[in-house]
Structure formats: structure tokens, C-alpha cells
């Protein structure tokens, strides 16, 4: 399933957030959207999923323009993993995952035995089968994020779009989720899914060996392989702090901001005021 966007302007009527955006993702690709807060990443994701109509240009999914597809057809082609949230009702994790099957049910349908099996298989694949009967709203942020990824798996869409999948996770869960994302794309097997994700951590783009789209103020400022796009200069420019990109002995790239000296006293004085 190929996702393609061209000449895209995103935002709300009277409040454009981004212009001239173009991107393409195919099976086995991982596309990593990077950029500071408010640069339009989430708005772009919503536009790519057809949740927000583009102000200009268009998005096509599997060769068809989004506006010509029904919501159910879009959901069969693209699954969305929102940031972990707490729904108002105490659904079980299994029920949350089963909701991923909705687009495959007739309008008045209920999930059946096969749907239940698919949902359990998705939970098991992520190693959280034991959470199936637990109250989703009582799970930790990391567990909820994994449940939402399981839901996307149960949706069986060839494209998965994730909004900051690691934002609320601890160190270990971040690594687990990243490993799952890499496995989802599974480029080696050739039947991989396409994954689009946003993140605040440029290291993840290196770790996933993803294609990078670096955004600032609604425009794409760099793109390509991480080693080409995520240079020290580009990251410093986009995030407004000096960033160094270094290689560890094992060859992994690490991006780190150099903490500017002059800001230290002001932090201390704030801390004192709070105390």
C-alpha cells in the first residue's frame, strides 16, 4: 500500500499550518517525522489519514485519493495509533483491540470468533496477551500504547500511522515499541507494512534506519536517510539549540543537545523560586 502526498497544504480553514508538503511511503518503509512542537507534525498525520481535509494538494492511498474512499475503506488501508489515552469507560484491553476490527464488520455487525482470535493474536504478538482481560483505563501508559499498537495490528491495514508512539513510555518500553515498529516494517521479508511515525527523539530515526522528514514551521527542511538529513547543523537549526551528532563505538548515531552554559543560572533561580 503506497501512501503519497503532493503539494499538500495542511491546517484549518483560515489557519494554514503547513505548505508544499510532499512525501511517499511504500511497503517496508518507515517514515519518521521530526520537528519541534507546533511544527505541524500531528496536523500532517491527521491530514494523511483523511481526518482533516487538505487545504491544497491531495493524499492518495493505494493509488486512490482519500476523498474518494469511505471511512471504512481508509481504515482497511491505514491504521492509526494515537497517543495513549484514557477512554471514559472501563473497556478491557481485548475490547479496545477488537475495535480495530470495526472496519471489517458490516454496519450492524458484531465482532465474532475470528475477530476475537485476531485480537488475541495481536496482543500475543506484542507480548501482552496477559493484559487481554484487564481494564484498559487502569493500565500504565506503556501498556496502553502497546494495546493501541495491537489494535492497529488487528486492523490488518498495510499502513500504520503512529503519533509519538514512545512519548509516554519509560526507557525499556520505548526500546520494545521501537523494536516492534522495526518488525512491523519487516523489510527483510518483503511483506512489510509501511509505517509513518512522529517522534521527538532523532535517535529513533537512526535506530529504525528510517526515512526522515524534518519539519520546521510547517515546511520540510530536510529529508532522506538519517545520516544525510539529521546533521548537526540541520538539527541545531530546527530545534534552536546546539546539537551534536556523534557515533558510538558500536557505530550507532546519538544526537545530543549541548547544554548552553548561560541558561543554567536561570533554571536554578526558577527552582529556588518554586521551593
Amino acid at each position, binding site marked *: 500500500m503506497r501512501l503519497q502526498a503532493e503539494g499538500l497544504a495542511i491546517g484549518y480553514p483560515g489557519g494554514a499550518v503547513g505548505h508544499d508538503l510532499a512525501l511517499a511511503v511504500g511497503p517496508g518503509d518507515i517514515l519518521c517525522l521530526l520537528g519541534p512542537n507546533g511544527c505541524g507534525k500531528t496536523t500532517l498525520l491527521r491530514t494523511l489519514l483523511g481526518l482533516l481535509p487538505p487545504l491544497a494538494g491531495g493524499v492518495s492511498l493505494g493509488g486512490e485519493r482519500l476523498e474518494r474512499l*469511505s471511512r471504512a475503506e481508509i481504515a482497511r488501508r491505514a491504521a492509526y495509533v494515537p*497517543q495513549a489515552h484514557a*477512554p471514559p*469507560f472501563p*473497556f478491557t484491553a481485548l475490547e479496545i483491540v477488537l475495535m480495530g476490527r470495526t472496519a471489517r464488520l458490516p454496519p450492524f455487525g458484531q465482532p465474532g470468533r475470528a475477530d476475537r482470535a485476531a485480537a488475541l493474536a495481536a496482543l500475543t504478538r506484542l507480548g501482552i496477551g496477559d493484559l487481554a482481560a484487564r481494564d484498559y483505563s487502569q493500565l500504565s501508559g506503556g501498556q496502553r500504547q502497546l494495546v493501541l499498537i495491537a489494535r492497529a495490528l488487528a486492523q490488518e491495514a498495510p499502513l500504520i500511522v503512529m503519533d509519538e508512539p514512545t512519548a*509516554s513510555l519509560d526507557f525499556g518500553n520505548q526500546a520494545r515499541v521501537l523494536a516492534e515498529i522495526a518488525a512491523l516494517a519487516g523489510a527483510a521479508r518483503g511483506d512489510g507494512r509501511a509505517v509513518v511515525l512522529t517522534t521527538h527523539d532523532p535517535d529513533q530515526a537512526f535506530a529504525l534506519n528510517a526515512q526522515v522528514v524534518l519539519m520546521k514551521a510547517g515546511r520540510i527542511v530536510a529529508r532522506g536517510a538519517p545520516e544525510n538529513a539529521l546533521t548537526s547543523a540541520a538539527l541545531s537549526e530546527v530545534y534552536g539549540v546546539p546539537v551534536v551528532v556523534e557515533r558510538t563505538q558500536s557505530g550507532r548515531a546519538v544526537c545530543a543537545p549541548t547544554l548552553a552554559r548561560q541558561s543554567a543560572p536561570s533554571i536554578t533561580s526558577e527552582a529556588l523560586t518554586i521551593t
Partner: protein
Amino acid sequence: MGGGARAAPRKPLSAPRIDAARPARRLAAPPLWAGVAVALAGLCFGALMLGPYPLTPAETLGALLGFGDAQAQIVVRNVRLPRVAAALLVGAALAAAGASYQALFRNPLVSPDILGVSAGAGLGAVLGIFLSLPVAAIQGMAFLGGLGAVTLVGLVARAVRGTDPTLALVLTGVVVGALAGAATSLLKVMADPYDQLPAITFWLLGSLASVTMADLAPAAPAVALGLVPLALLRWRINVLSLGDEEARALGVEAGRLRLVVVAAATLATASVVALAGVVGWVGLVIPHVARMLVGPGFGRLLPAAAALGAGYLLVVDTLARTMAAVEIPLGILTAVIGAPFFIWLLARGRRGWL
């Protein structure tokens, strides 16, 4: 980002709905519902026996089947049976509508009363009485009034988005309800004090005292027309309770579904408001109890809420006509029971069930 912090688990879940129990529950479901039906039938039979003219079980059964004392037959078949049927219908409709609104507005604290539906439907029906319209027209007015109120509440709450959405919704409901109440009061002042006013007043407090089979005839199909779409769409209503955006991403046409659910729940509410007057609290309290019993899955929640609501209102109505020499208006009893329950819910404040 912050999603994880908000719902800090208060106590570890003792897993009441464990996975292994799932197939067992499936097997247990038919006996469970059979038990519910038997319990409801028992309540109905008890309600038919009780009253100012008490009957023995044998007399009641005989009267139901058309044997025995002529007066007992009249009491059971013409007076009590329509009333029992109406209580079941009203309770089931209000509770089912309440469960639907709660899922729709993603808020377990909303109900037909809080959203102004009851007040709006009340205004419509009072206007109908004021204009001396026929019963069917009064029902139509109640539906339009209820639909108008809930639409207004939804639109205003959306417009004042800056604040906490729950608070905006509840406060808007209060405001719209108060506005409808004011208009209702105006109609009461203008109404004929000998003919219309007593009817309006008694009706606003909620009562099944004067219900006949002829009143039930138009109300029952209207309630069914409201509840059937809710039952058919039960899975999609679950998905909608995750929020519009997520529901759309999961393949649900959220806007269209929302319209259908609002119209269906409002039709059910307005039909029974036209029949029984304004009976508050049922639509708030009963769905909570039902959710505690069967969980939030709408496929089980809807029938559970309907059955519980039917039984609850039957008991309350039987109390209303037997507790005192004078008939106590239903709305008063449901408020006396419902208000403390609401306070208890607020005090408990556990996320998820609340």
C-alpha cells in the same frame, strides 16, 4: 504525552472479567437473561396484586386470564396492567437512552435530564397540552422539544470548547434546561387554571396514574423505533465512545452515527416523556448500575440497562401508588432515590466506573 499520568490506578484490578471466564460467560448468558426475565415477570405479578384493592396471587392470575370476580378483572386488566406495562416501557426507554447518551458524549455523568432533553421534551409536551392538541401531536411536540434541546446543548458546549468539555456539557444542559423550564412556567401562567393547569402540573412531576392502553399504543412503537437502531449499532456505539477522531480512524462515519444515535435516544426519551411526564434520574442512575454489573460493552449494557430500568421504575411506580393514601408523583420518588446515589457516585469518584 500526559495520558499516562491522569489515570493513575487506584487499586490493582482484581480482574473480575478474566479471559478464561469469557467462554463461560457466553454459556452463562442465556440463563442469566432468562433469570432477568423471570425476575421482571415476578415483579410484574407482584405489582398487579398490590394496590388499594389487594388481590391474592390466585385472584390475580384468574383476573389476568379472564376468570373470577368481575371487579378484580377490571382492576387488574384495565387499571393495573396498562400501568405496569407503562412503567416497564418508561423505565426501559429512559435507562437505554441514558446509556446511549453517556456513550455518545463520552461522559458517564450525562443523562436525558442533565442534557436538557427531558426539559425540552417537557416544554414541547406542555405546549401541546396548552394548545389542546391530540395525544399523537403532543408526542411529536415532545420529540421536537427534546431534539431541539439536545442539539442546542451539543452546539453550545462545542462552541465554548475552551473549558473542560464535561463541565461545558453539563453546565450548558443546566442552562438549556432552565430556559425550557422558564418557558414551561410561562405556559403554566397562561394556561387555563381549571382545566389545563392541573394536568400540566401533575404531568410535569411525572405520573403513570392515568395511563390507559390507548396511550400505550402510540408510545410503544415509538420507543421501539428509538431502541432498535441503538441495539443494531451497539458495536459501533462502543467505538464512538472513544471519540470522534479515533472512531473515524477505525472506519466509523462518526458524524452520521452520532446523528442517528442522538435521534434514536431522543425519540425514546421524548416518547415516554409524552406518556408519563418528566421522570428524572432513571437515565443517569440505572446505566451506572448496569455498567457495574456487565461492564461498558454496549452490546450487554443496553439490554442490561433497559431491563434494570424497567424493573426499577415498576418498583418505584408500585411504591408511588401504594405507599400513601394519595398518589405520589413518580418524579419525586426517583429524585429522592437518585439524588443521593448521584452524590455517592461523585464522592466515590473512581475513574472508569464514574
